[in-house]
């Protein structure tokens, strides 16, 4: 997993397909619920191309306990965020899957962050890590990205106010060098950006690289997209480099990171497929549809091929101006279920 953005289409199709087929077979043999579903839907376990690999709807992890390992091998349970009262996804990890997730993330971030671990500001509160046996999506993200940082500083107090004094101290010590900032999109927007704007405080983090993810659904009232988010954050916090990423707790480690052109990229060990929300047929580039994600990482649970509830568009493959290979795409967000019908022919984006 040394070069995450160098594989071209034909080569990737062969290498990734073989790994996905191996995983389908593994889960078919190790997870009873998975094998029942595959048998019932009469799908082929060994697919002839990546688009034919059987997929599960991601919501299934909310209603079922899906795992391909015995209970005693579970080392960590990840849960999706979800507002209170909502059922959450449960993802069971064993030692090997947890390790390969971390390693994949490292290989992916190296082209962006380099080899050296950077002084790191986490735009969140430390209390999200309270329960060590079970991490929320936020906790899992923070821990995963913490490997790229050192001298970790949590910028939010437990009551979600900004720790100005701590920030100032941190910047006095490390402000002259490159630093890493990490946080969840809606947390940054609500508890950092808006507070600073209200109080008319502008910061100067011009040595910082900000990585943020977690989706836009909690910001739907704000009608904000990736481009204007980046712009406004740059303006208020003085950050020079910002990368959004798309990823989910059901496939931790395989994330899709925004390149300097503003597009999300699929790395060599994962891919995206866009499907028509009604027929589930694979649609051509430029057409909006439901995002399916495949990844070679999930071994302890059958999550290597998942149909999400997110809508997105593939812009192109192997020819992004940024130089990274692989499919590049945009995510529009999550459209309420009632509105899914018909949206595929209303929205289009350039090819």
């Amino acid at each position, binding site marked *: 997993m040394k070069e995450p953005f160098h594989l071209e289409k034909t080569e990737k199709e062969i290498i990734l397909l073989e790994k996905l087929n191996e995983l389908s077979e593994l889960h078919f043999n190790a997870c009873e619920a998975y094998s029942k579903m595959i048998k019932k839907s009469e799908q082929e376990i060994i697919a002839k191309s990546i688009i034919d690999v059987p997929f599960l709807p991601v919501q299934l992890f909310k209603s079922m306990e899906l795992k391909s390992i015995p209970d005693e091998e579970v*080392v*960590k349970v990840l849960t999706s965020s979800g507002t209170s009262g909502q059922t959450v996804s449960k993802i069971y990890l064993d*030692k090997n899957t*947890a*390790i390969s997730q*971390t*390693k994949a993330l*490292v290989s992916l971030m*190296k082209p962006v962050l380099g*080899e*050296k*671990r950077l002084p790191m500001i986490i735009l969140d509160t430390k209390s999200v*890590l309270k329960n*060590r*046996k079970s991490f929320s999506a936020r906790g899992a993200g923070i*821990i995963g990205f*913490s*490997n*790229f940082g*050192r*001298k*970790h500083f949590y910028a939010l107090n437990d009551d979600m106010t900004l720790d100005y004094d701590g920030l100032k101290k941190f910047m006095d010590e490390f402000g002259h060098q490159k630093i890493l900032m990490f946080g969840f999109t809606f947390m940054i927007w609500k508890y950092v950006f808006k507070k600073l704007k209200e109080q008319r405080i502008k910061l100067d983090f011009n040595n910082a690289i900000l990585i943020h993810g977690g989706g836009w659904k909690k910001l739907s009232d704000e009608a904000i997209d990736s481009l204007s988010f980046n712009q406004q954050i740059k303006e208020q916090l003085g950050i020079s480099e910002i990368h959004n990423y798309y990823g989910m707790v059901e496939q931790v480690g395989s994330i899709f990171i925004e390149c300097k052109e503003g597009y999300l990229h699929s790395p060599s060990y994962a891919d995206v497929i866009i499907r028509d929300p009604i027929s589930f047929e694979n649609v051509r580039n430029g057409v909006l549809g439901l995002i399916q994600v495949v990844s070679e990482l999930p071994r302890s649970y059958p999550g290597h091929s998942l149909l999400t509830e997110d809508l997105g568009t593939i812009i192109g493959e192997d020819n992004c101006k940024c130089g990274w290979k692989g499919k590049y795409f945009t995510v529009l967000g999550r459209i309420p279920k009632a509105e899914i019908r018909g949206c595929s022919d209303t929205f289009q984006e350039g090819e």
Partner: protein
Amino acid sequence: MKLKEIFKEVLELDETVNIEELEYNTIPQWDSIGHMSLIAELEDVFDIMLDTDDVLDMSSFSKAKEILGKYDVVF
């Protein structure tokens, strides 16, 4: 030996744990969060900066000795 003391203190190990044989994720205290604290302490005490790959490779006590050896520290 300094390194053993650091492991013992950061991971809150009791006397029954054989530190020489200790591996990552085999006890509740040495999980991803414990690992982060361990790395931070090692960097502070030995005044070094570990590379990302070394942070991830440090999957056992003996591996820790091997990796720290590369950084010319005495432990």
